[in-house]
């Protein structure tokens, strides 16, 4: 499959109906999601692997991992409504993915690879939420793919070093966030984000 083909498939993944600003529910753009899935595939972190999508939203990474040959895919999110959207789409397309509603903190199942676009912690109520996702990732997976605001990367790097992990790859993207909430003042704001591939100390 070509990257462009995957991107076209991922563009069909439904978006949030009533996105919650507190949960920072922004859909990962299909071109970025497809690029990340392809990178993970090249690192041999997808095919025949057990993949978990933490904070999956409507499941764009889950669908991408399933389509590119993951063994088992689980998407978890705290928001029941977006899981319902994801589940409905999985049923329609007959993609065999398990979606469940759970707090990321409470999830204990081990896996090979985690793909995640954690909330950036832009809202006060979400302070340090990206850290909670990384902590969980270190507990349950051997490789993490995680997206962060580029301006917070130095902090994230320190955190990963402290936990004994290794950043083996990073790539920058521009993430356009469209005006969807009342407190947004501009139509589109571009955020610089960085993808990290993190090897935890597990094998």
């Amino acid at each position, binding site marked *: 499959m070509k990257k462009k083909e995957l991107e076209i498939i991922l563009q069909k993944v439904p978006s949030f109906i009533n996105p919650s600003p507190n949960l920072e529910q922004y859909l990962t753009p299909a071109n970025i999601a497809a690029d990340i899935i392809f990178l993970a595939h090249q690192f041999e972190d997808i095919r025949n692997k057990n993949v978990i999508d933490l904070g999956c939203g409507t499941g764009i990474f889950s669908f991408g991992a399933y389509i590119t040959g993951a063994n088992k895919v689980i998407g978890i999110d705290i928001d029941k409504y977006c*899981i319902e959207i994801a*589940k409905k789409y999985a*049923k329609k397309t007959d993609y065999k993915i398990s979606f*469940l*509603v*759970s707090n990321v903190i409470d999830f*204990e199942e081990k896996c090979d690879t985690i793909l995640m676009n954690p909330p950036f912690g832009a809202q006060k109520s979400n302070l340090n939420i990206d850290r909670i996702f990384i902590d969980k990732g270190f507990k349950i997976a051997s490789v993490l793919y995680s997206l962060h605001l580029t301006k917070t990367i130095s902090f994230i790097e320190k955190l990963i070093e402290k936990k004994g992990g290794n950043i083996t790859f990073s790539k920058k993207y521009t993430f356009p966030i469209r005006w969807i909430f009342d407190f947004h003042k501009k139509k589109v704001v571009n955020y610089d984000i960085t993808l990290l591939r993190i090897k935890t100390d597990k094998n």
Partner: protein
Amino acid sequence: MKKDIINILCCPTCKGDLELKIKKDIKDDVIEGIFTCKKCKCKYDIEDGIPNLLPK
């Protein structure tokens, strides 16, 4: 929700094992049911095939 997913889930409150009671299923897919924690007896619903593991 596939029945075998119970093997990977635990109670979010006390980490105890869960027991599955099925109300409605199609083959291996559970459509409606209830998880009950064997330890703390908390209950978690499965609706429309989606397990909801948020403590009430």
